[in-house]
């Protein structure tokens, strides 16, 4: 990370985004647990019920945003943990891109699943 051409320096950006996503996730993760374990019991979940929930545009959008923010927050956290343990140089670059690819795959697959759960498309 040698480039400091941008006035918005990447290190600070990731730190800030980690906090912004955290604030969002605190609320949505709590909501997610409440809805799928307390309001609807996990054992009683059926595809029909899932489709009914996911077909509401607001809920669908929240879940997709949930997926994206959670992926960023989680993967960025893993990357930070490794850098803090002294990961640097080529292994760091390799790990970084591995994590980026894993995140993209997760988000793509997650969105595919979310679409399959709706009657929207």
């Amino acid at each position, binding site marked *: *990370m040698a480039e*400091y051409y941008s*006035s*918005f*320096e990447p*290190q*600070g*950006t*990731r*730190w*800030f985004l980690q906090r912004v996503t955290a604030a969002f996730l605190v609320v949505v993760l709590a909501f997610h647990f409440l809805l799928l374990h307390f309001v609807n019991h996990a054992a009683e979940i059926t595809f029909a019920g899932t489709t009914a929930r996911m077909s509401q545009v607001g809920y669908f959008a929240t879940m997709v945003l949930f997926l994206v923010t959670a992926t960023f927050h989680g993967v960025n956290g893993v990357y930070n943990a490794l*850098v*803090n*343990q*002294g990961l640097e140089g080529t292994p760091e670059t390799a790990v970084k891109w591995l994590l980026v690819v894993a995140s993209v795959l997760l988000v793509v697959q997650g969105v595919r699943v979310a679409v399959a759960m709706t009657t929207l498309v």
Partner: protein
Amino acid sequence: MSTDVTERESETETEPEAAADAASRPGSSTQQRQESDKRERSAMRERAERELAESDRTVELEVYRYDPDVEGKADPRFDTFPVPFTKGMTVLDALIYARDHFDSSLTFRHSCRQAICGSDALFINGHQRLGCKTQMADLEWPVRVEPLPHAEVRKDLVVDMEHFYDQMEAVEPYFRTDDLPSGDLAEQRQSRQNREKIKMSTRCIWCGACTSSCNIAAGDEEYLGPAAINKAYRFAMDEREGEAMRDHRLNVVEKEHGVWRCQTQFSCTEVCPKDIPLTEHIQELKREAVKRNLKFW
């Protein structure tokens, strides 16, 4: 008691030197001096034994010993010294007692003995503390004294501070400004509020306790560490330096191995012998850096 061992060792250490000295200057007073040193040492020991017998309470001091240049000390070990406890005795007092009475080769840094010079930060009973500021009465006995963790040990309790000093220098720890007063004799006045703001950060004595306690500084050698960031805070928040300097200082601390590495574990704040709220200062610099960057949007 292991003091016997060290006693023997410290003598073998000095003998070859003394012999060489005597050979180069025949008939000199070296031999006499050596004799008198020996007498003095045994007198000190006798005194220590008397004092130990007379004292109501004896505290055992377990001290980390290591010296790569001396056979038998190249493998780190602990030596135990009995020290007659006196009211108000600090860990540094006890160490000095042990050195003066039992083993003159026991090595540690100390200077002012009043928590100003920052020489005697040690790992005492598992915490980074200043030897001169830690009361023996406040500790669990026996008291275990080790050199600061996460630093290279040179000898006994002495660690290499070079890396720490390099990190401190990296933040340019001196006052600089473009904003000079107009008149020749005009002073650079600081407002009372601004002085209050930086007050705690000016108290740093460069003892290295915080950096030694920091888990991140241990893993990431390039991380500036709490002391250096606090030093940067002291100047970045000083309004007399002006906008351009402040910008420059924020650039320094917000590099990849700057403030962002801090994980708010509060270890540094817990151990700081001068009670500097280090974590708070690091957090404020993070927020200032983010705010400054957001302004460009």
